[in-house]
């Protein structure tokens, strides 16, 4: 597992520099209007980008065919990509916190933003990784785009419709259940990915 992660991190090193530049540019833009939520978007994008890029590199080098002949299990190969995803979320959360600190976002507001965007990042990962394992990155990327676009469009549409105001207690319940929901989704996603990978031929 350690070896697999080391490989992905070294492999992504070059790309990580580009990511960092993008994040910094975004942060600079965000500074202009002091919009912490805007930077939250970075978290969401960064998290799934790391493992998907890692899988793309593996595909290009035909690494997976060799990897399954090594003394690592297929489950470990799948898990290593999820760990990369968690690393992405943590990194994103760190950037977001740093930004919030710099623009002096109130602590409670910042905590909510970090939680919401990290959760969203994890959800996108949970949805995209099984797709990538099943379809490969080339086709998978398009499907992920659709998966991300549909809820975005729906939420834009919904924001135009007058919805009944939700009571305080419903919000409280939702905020308590959300982490459980995300955790369950990630677990389910890992199990599905492992199933897909077990049947995969190279």
């Amino acid at each position, binding site marked *: 597992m*350690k*070896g*697999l992660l*080391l*490989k992905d991190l*070294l*492999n992504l*090193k*070059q790309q990580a520099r580009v990511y960092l530049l993008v994040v910094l540019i975004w942060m600079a833009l965000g500074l202009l209007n002091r919009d912490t939520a805007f930077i939250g978007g970075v978290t969401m994008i960064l998290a799934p980008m790391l493992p998907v890029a890692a899988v793309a*590199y*593996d595909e*290009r*080098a*035909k*690494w997976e*065919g*060799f*990897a*399954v*002949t*090594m*003394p*690592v*299990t297929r489950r470990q190969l799948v898990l290593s990509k999820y760990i990369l995803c968690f690393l992405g979320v943590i990194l994103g959360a760190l950037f977001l916190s740093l930004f919030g600190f710099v623009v002096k976002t109130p602590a409670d507001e910042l905590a909510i933003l970090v939680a919401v965007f990290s959760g969203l990042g994890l959800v996108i990962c949970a949805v995209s990784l099984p797709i990538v394992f099943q379809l490969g990155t080339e086709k998978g990327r398009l499907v992920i785009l659709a998966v991300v676009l549909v809820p975005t469009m729906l939420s834009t549409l919904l924001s135009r419709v007058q919805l009944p105001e939700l009571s305080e207690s419903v919000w409280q319940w939702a905020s308590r259940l959300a982490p459980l929901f995300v955790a369950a989704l990630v677990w389910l996603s890992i199990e599905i990915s492992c199933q897909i990978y077990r*049947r995969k*031929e*190279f």
Partner: protein
Amino acid sequence: MSNALELKNLTKHYTGFTLDNLSLTLPEGCVMGLIGENGAGKSTTIKALLGLVRSDSGEIQVLGEPISDVSTQMREHLGVVLDECTFPENLSLLQIGKMMQYCYQSWQPQRFSHYTKLFSLPEKKPVKAFSRGMKMKLSIAVALSHDSRLLILDEATSGLDPLVRDEILDVFLEFMQDEHHSILISSHILSDLEKICDYIACIHGGKLVFCEEKDKLLEQYQMIKCTKAQLEKIDPRQIVGVREHAFGIEALAKKCVVPADILAEPATIEEIMVYTIKEAKR
């Protein structure tokens, strides 16, 4: 003596191609060469016995364990070189060595650096800057730098110049000094196989044409050069395949007594393969 590899009635269907009831046995301590045309099923066979593709039916045993549940422990003893370099392209040799150290418990850094020096591979260049030959050498160095007992090599020497191939064949022969070591190697360069193999297995159209000890194979056949009229004097049952050209006839025949005026020479593996497959195609 136990077997390093055992394939029994291996079958795998694809649209347009079937690997049909293939059975092979590689005894421990031996080298087997897998030969055949492009698309004959060599790579599919290798993939099936590495567990990269699932067979539809049949049994596969690798180092005494069924492939479906080969333990990670057993994979320490499996050295694999696939026909394309499989290493992450942004990594350098040093980084690959470091990574492998975490992947293989039996990884031997000194041995890895010995082979990479022997093959004069650059330490700091990323893999993507390597030539095909260098990539192949890297794959071979990795396969030899852990506790491999069985090497499975798919086209490991193709794309390499004759000098390097010779060097690599020497490395394989050195590996075979241990009587528990075995090699399965597929290649189109039959002269290489002739140098190192104990057994030759020939596949055509997904079927096994022959699997024989190399020496027996070479003893069994001869190449005959004669005229059409001279050929008619030979028992047709002894003739495997015939090629006609402007100056006469070349034929692969089983070893038999031929009239003194007919030129008979020892056959090479390449001639045996070409004539046998041509005959199978008819």
